[in-house]
């Protein structure tokens, strides 16, 4: 039989080419590039911190509430701190808490979703109703309650946001698993005597990885929001950190009386830029991975 005469040669290199093509499509995606650029910018400043900022972000060295000008491009706040330096240095805590919280949510949610999707019937039904009940409450309420109960530190913040995300991620992963579990490769695995954990994590998981990656980026955006919101309410990052939402919390009272909008505008814009950038990355990934 000469059925393989003119078959194109495939092998390891071919797999590499396929991976490179996926990367190539990502790099050609404008949304992905812009998003990554902005995120990398904030990551750079989170690492560099006060070493590269024009002034010390926590030193109260200047006349308070100076409007933006040549000396202080973003002005100063009511304690006489340079707003530009504080905005640049303000990404650090968020960028520590949000990704770690997302990681917990993704790992927990993936496991939950695989179990629910793979064991239809009672297991799925019971867990599903519990998630429904849980999601009926506003997330911020659950988080505030939990933080009030366990006391707030950076680590409890990470844990609480991660746990709140777990059922949400779980639902998305479950839907993806349902699309896979009836495919015949799952039956084929059972027909060589594989047990459930192997089928879930080795056979099915790689096939729902695209969904999980996109979900992770979307969740990261929400995590940044959640950190900002909880910090604003006083349950998150604590002073004297130059964290963005802490700056807003410190200064938003001034908006009422006089036009000191720069104290709030710049950190607000910084939060928005990070969240939008992360969502741009999610969009870019989705377009490429969903092909």
């Amino acid at each position, binding site marked *: *039989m*000469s*059925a*393989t*005469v*003119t*078959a*194109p*040669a*495939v*092998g*390891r290199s*071919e*797999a590499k080419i*396929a991976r490179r093509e996926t990367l190539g499509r990502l790099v050609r995606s404008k949304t992905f590039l812009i998003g990554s650029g902005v995120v990398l910018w904030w990551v750079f400043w989170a690492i560099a911190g006060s070493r590269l900022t024009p002034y010390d972000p926590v030193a109260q060295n200047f006349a308070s509430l100076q409007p933006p000008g040549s000396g202080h491009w973003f002005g100063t706040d009511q304690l006489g701190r340079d707003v530009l330096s504080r905005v640049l240095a303000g990404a650090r805590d968020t960028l520590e808490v949000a990704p770690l919280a997302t990681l917990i949510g993704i790992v927990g949610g993936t496991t939950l979703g695989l179990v629910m999707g793979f064991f239809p019937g009672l297991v799925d039904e019971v867990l599903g109703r519990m998630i429904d009940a849980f999601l009926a409450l506003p997330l911020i309420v659950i988080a505030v309650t939990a933080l009030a109960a366990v006391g707030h530190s950076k680590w409890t913040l990470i844990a609480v946001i991660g746990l709140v995300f777990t059922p949400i991620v779980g639902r998305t992963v479950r839907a993806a698993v349902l699309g896979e579990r009836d*495919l*015949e*490769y799952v*039956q*084929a*695995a*059972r*027909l*060589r*005597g*594989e047990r459930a954990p192997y089928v879930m994590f080795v*056979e099915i998981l*790689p*096939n729902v*990885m695209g969904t999980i990656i996109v979900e992770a980026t979307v969740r990261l955006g929400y995590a940044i929001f959640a950190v900002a919101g909880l910090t604003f309410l006083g349950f998150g990052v604590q002073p004297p950190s130059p964290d963005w939402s802490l700056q807003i919390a410190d200064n938003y009272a001034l908006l009422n009386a006089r036009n000191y909008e720069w104290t709030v505008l710049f950190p607000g814009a910084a939060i928005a830029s990070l969240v939008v950038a992360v969502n741009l990355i999610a969009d870019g990934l989705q377009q490429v991975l969903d092909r």
Partner: protein
Amino acid sequence: MSAPALELAPKAEGAVPALELEDLDVVYTVRGRDRQVLRGVTLTVGRGEAYGLVGESGCGKSTAALAIVRYLPRNGRVRSGHIRIDGQDVLARSGGDLRTMRAEAVSMVYQNPGTALNPAIRIGKQVAEVFTVRGASRAEATERAFESLKLVQIADPSSVMHRYPHQLSGGMQQRVVIAMALAKDPALLILDEPTTGLDATVEAEVLDLVAGLQAQLHTSVLFISHNLGVIAKMCARVGVLYAGRLVEEGPVETVLRDPRHPYTVGLLRCIPRGGVRKDHGRLDTIAGFLPNLGEDLPGCVFAARCALAEDVCHTEEPPMHQVAGGHLSRCHFHERAQTLPREESADLELPRVDRGASPLLQFDELGKVFQQRGHSVHALTGVSAAVWPGETLGLVGESGSGKTTLARTLLGIIEPSEGKVSLAGQQLAERLSQRSTDEVRDLQIVFQNPDAALNRRHAVRRILRRTLYKLAGLGGAAADERMLRLMHSVRLAERYVSAKPSQLSGGLKQRLAIARAFAGDPKLVVCDEPTSALDVSVQAAILNLLVELQAERQVSYVFISHDLGVVRYVSDRIAVLYLGRLMELGPSEVVFDGPHHPYTEALLSAVPTIDGGGRERIKLEGDIPSAASPPSGCVFHTRCPRVLGAICEETEPPLVEVEPGHLMRCHIPLEELRRLQRAPTETVRA
């Protein structure tokens, strides 16, 4: 040969043809490069003529159809050539002009009627839309929609008009689509694989309908199919497409009987037909692969795979040679195309099946009831049979007959509601997880669709090594060695070890799936439609492989297929299922040659064959009854053309051994069946 269309159609010489393609080149732009998909296709569909376009997947059939209605995907375009429908230049039109042409001059029927109909709109409104678009009033449109549903012989059209598409069976849906396509009395009707998704009996009905309407309305038809049997039944002329080029064209009968292009010759030899069985030897195949999309082919497109090719074939494009009146072949050596040597030697030493020994697999009174929304669906009722070592048991029946449920019950994927399965005398646990490793290893399966059956994230090495580890307890170098031996025995080249399934062609994927099934040296392999997703030339190679493995290893098969030619080729014995019951069981030749059960008879008569003629079509009325409420008495009596009367409606006939080794479930005595089935068919109540 049934080509009533041409004889009835007026063949007015000099009239404007319904469709003219002239030197049509279509390219797709992929990654900035033009890839040629159609290469100078020239063909003409005369008025009232049915023209068949045949070819394997990837040869450009559907592209041709899309180009004709100017519906190519965004990266596709007509580079040169002309398309004329009813004398009108299609390529010169745009915008509203083009829409008018699509609305009035040409209709298209696609393969999948389920997606061609809008699921949210009632049938009546959808069909009426065809008329309102063309300016009819609402009441008039509804009236005419009713008329067109009657035309396609839909039972109870007024109730159908109020239903949604999902409430109709596949055959009914396709009738509705055909009704819509014909409603505007198009100059050209394009049918793109219109019956590929349907059961043989339903397919036969739809084809009869189309043939009848075509004769009645003198519609010009471009019929696209991969199935030569269907083309033979439906068309007067046929064009064979290969790698985007029309390689042969002529009257259907002539081309099929006297093909003059090596590709057509090879294609016809791949198909198991005319009662050929595995003990007659291997099937012939076509070497090599279809050229890549848009590959630069300076000479004959088929040269790389052609055993007759000489130097000139690789350098010089052959012209269309006139073989005889209207029969054209694009081959330099068309006079000796039929001397194409066999690609595969036919010699094959098959093991003798010793039915005196104890059977390998035996199942007794297997039953399966599914609970579905409060209903009990009897998917399987009291099915018993046995398979001996080295034997193939073929399972045939329409969809919903319980073939797949039976196969999966044997494997333990589905637990039976009653009955038992034993392997080599040992009763098997019902659940797969309770079976021992040896038992799991002994029963394996090859699925229909290798895309779903292979984990697309796992490479060949991982798939095979893991299976060897689980079923043969092999690891390390021993597993590598066995893996390579296994790949060799299914003819999967060693260089594919690191490839993922998506990098393999359909045939190679199925070879990998077969290698996986054979990793633990099974005693019995269930083959669930293993070739129905493949092209005929690939199908032949896979069937050869399965038969060779059987000869080598004495493995038994339970072989499910809706293609009766394929079942006949591989099977030693055949079981016919209907509504979960065994209707007939016997040696392959006996079941095929008859006298057979009336259901088997109808199934056989429904298959359009290339050789044509032979059997008179026996029409089965209506769809398969629901397994949730099977008919009383003999379950087949509602559709049986030979029904006797009250006894069939009241008493279920037992499964009786009517002659040695031949079991049948019918009230009609064997001798009577023999007489009836030999008699001319006019006596049959249709």
